[in-house]
């Protein structure tokens, strides 16, 4: 017993020591961590290149371009082109799947293990900014000049308050896609209003066919229905959610979705893990309609599905889609040389040539010249429909707490649609939780 006591007290001393060290280090993070992590990132970047006499700089570029659609091939070509134009810069691309991209930035935040350039979903901007890792790109010398050559709406996705923390890389929004064969067989015409669309969904759902697939329940998925009916998720100044997310309009809209789900006319893999993923479902001829982005056309083509496209059916207030896309972001952890090189690369990637090249593999350009370029129009036959949709598409709120707010919406809407809770109850709860979140410092 004596030995036990001695060993225990010894161990407790060590633990206490460790705890004090760790606890104290958190309070005085500023100076020591500062130097440590910036030294870390520089030396990390150093160790990955031959950084010696000719001052060559290698920048780390994290992205999630789609290999299947040929985007990676184009990216590599563009990188080769950029490197030949800028011999002192090397670009090292790292592909990360969508959620891995986000979690790697989260994991890398404290330590400074971050890339120099990242192309990621515009929805990441608020979350990354809350980690205090993004460079305020708006403060870069020629930012405004470059920004003027880019569509304003997509670029606003990188704006928080009145500062820009990124620049648009490509944009997209969603339109209606439908399975032509199933429509013909059912003798239906393309719906023009939301109500028509829901009725069509019910009519098409028999046998193994399900009329409508909605892949998720976050703002990206359902905001369009609420906006198109004149409702909103949050107050225009983002100060509250009560009266918006649980307004009568929102409740009625979500109620329709819940009814469709119950009638087995609507489903999705996050609502029902037993349902086929949207791509797999399209390929198998199970899904008849979806509101989705340009990639849906490419995938359908690959799978030989005769797919039709049309404007998203309008609600009572019009056809208002959700603005999506990706932004380029830069990070505070890069040193000056890397930041300069990164900015050069970004400028190249938002230049007309690169944007047109990417347009050929399904990336809707944000560069104004590239949009009207004949090569783009030729490569994207659906461009007219998307252009029309982009005119009215709205961005999601760009506020620091947006990621958490979206999580709440996703959960509550899912509870409502799957029937776990009555729609009004779920949305009321959402309002309460969101307001609590907004009230915290």
């Amino acid at each position, binding site marked *: 017993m004596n*030995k*036990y006591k*001695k*060993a*225990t007290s*010894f*161990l407790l001393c060590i633990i206490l020591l460790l705890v004090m060290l760790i606890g104290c280090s958190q309070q005085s993070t500023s100076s020591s961590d500062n130097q*440590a992590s910036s030294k*870390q990132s520089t*030396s*990390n970047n150093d160790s*990955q290149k031959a950084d010696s006499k000719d001052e060559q700089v290698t920048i780390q570029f994290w992205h*999630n371009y*789609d*290999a*299947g659609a040929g985007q990676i091939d184009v990216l590599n070509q563009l990188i080769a082109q950029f490197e030949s134009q800028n011999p002192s810069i090397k670009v*090292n691309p*790292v*592909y*990360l*799947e*969508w959620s*891995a991209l986000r*979690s*790697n930035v989260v*994991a*890398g935040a*404290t*330590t*400074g*293990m971050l890339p120099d350039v990242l192309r990621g979903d515009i929805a990441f901007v608020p979350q990354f900014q809350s980690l205090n890792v993004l460079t305020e790109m708006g403060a870069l010398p020629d930012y405004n000049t470059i920004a003027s050559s880019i569509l304003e709406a997509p670029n606003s996705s990188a704006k928080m308050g009145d500062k820009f923390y990124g620049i648009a890389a490509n944009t997209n929004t969603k339109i209606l896609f439908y399975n032509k064969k199933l429509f013909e067989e059912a003798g239906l015409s393309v719906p023009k209003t939301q109500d028509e669309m829901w009725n069509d969904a019910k009519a098409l759902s028999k046998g*193994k066919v399900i009329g409508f697939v909605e*892949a998720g329940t976050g703002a990206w998925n359902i905001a369009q229905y609420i906006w198109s009916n004149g409702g909103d998720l949050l107050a225009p100044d983002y100060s509250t959610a009560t009266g918006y997310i649980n307004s009568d309009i929102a409740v009625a809209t979500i109620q329709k979705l819940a009814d469709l789900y119950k009638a087995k006319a609507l489903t999705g*893999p996050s609502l029902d893990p037993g349902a*086929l*993923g*949207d*791509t*797999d479902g399209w*390929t*198998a001829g*199970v899904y008849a309609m979806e509101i*989705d*982005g340009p*990639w*849906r056309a490419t*995938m359908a083509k*690959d*799978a*030989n599905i005769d797919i039709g496209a049309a404007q998203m059916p309008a609600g009572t207030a019009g056809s208002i889609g959700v603005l999506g896309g990706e932004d380029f972001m830069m990070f505070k952890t890069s040193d000056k040389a890397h930041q300069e090189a990164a900015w050069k690369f970004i400028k190249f990637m938002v230049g007309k040539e690169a944007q047109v090249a990417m347009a050929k593999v399904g990336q809707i350009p944000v560069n104004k010249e590239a949009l009207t370029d004949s090569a783009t129009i030729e490569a994207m036959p659906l461009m007219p429909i998307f252009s029309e949709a982009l005119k009215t598409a709205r961005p999601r709120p760009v506020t620091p707490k947006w990621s958490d707010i979206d999580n709440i919406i996703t959960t509550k809407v899912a509870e409502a649609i799957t029937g776990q809770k009555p729609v009004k109850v779920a949305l009321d709860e959402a309002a309460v939780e969101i307001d609590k979140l907004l009230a915290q410092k």
Partner: protein
Amino acid sequence: MDKNSLQKSLIIRYIILALGVLFMIIPMIYMITSSLRPNSMTFSYPPQIFPKLSQLTLENYRYVLLRQNFFQYMSNTLIVAALSVLFSALAASMLGYCISRFKFWGRDFLYTVIITIMLIPGLAMLVPEFELAVTLKLVNNLWGVILFYTAWSIPFSTFLIKGYIDGIPKELDEATYMDGGTVFTIFFRIIIPMASPSIAAVSIFNFLFPFEELGWSQTILKIDSMRTLPVAITQFFQAHNRTDWGYVFAMTCLSMVPVVIIYLFLQRYFISGLSSGAIKG
């Protein structure tokens, strides 16, 4: 029991076992056949376990082997597996030996702590571990994976090996001391050979681990040339819910080959290695 009923019960055993095997391997068969079919056919309805011969294609394997860095991923994974098995075996048997044979200061306590650590999954402490890895410059480095896997496997390995060593007669130690041997001599000449079944047993588990661990390897290994197989497989989970199932299954089937080989190689030690005093009644 007379011969006849012995025969009967034997046949019944075989039948039950065979049916069981069927249940066990149907998913695997499905995986193999899916890897031999084009991507778009994976989720055809009605689902088919046994595809028509005309649909079979080696396209997926060709893609995985030629257009991807498969051999790089495989060699990375093998290196990680071999080294973490080696280090873990060494460290665990050293710890197991000392805990089993010597009553040193803090011994019981140390053993309790080791067992307690076994209860905590290595991955639950992701963020502190990642900060540690960065400080030690272990990111994008196979050592960042090897050292952590070793650490995670030591508690269980120590537990098993220590239990086994408990069953090795102490007289052998005595004899060696008489002959002028040291603790080291005993360890290398006697303990390791005699404890080899249990070392083989833990090594099978530890060898498998890098072939399926995803969370940590995905965090540490970012550069393509550094990736291990599990990470490489996830790159087929493309954006927007599109997954190239054929490639996923093809790569998985290929990655299972080394593990099955090692298993066949070590499996005869497996059974005896698990017969340690700590486990028996």
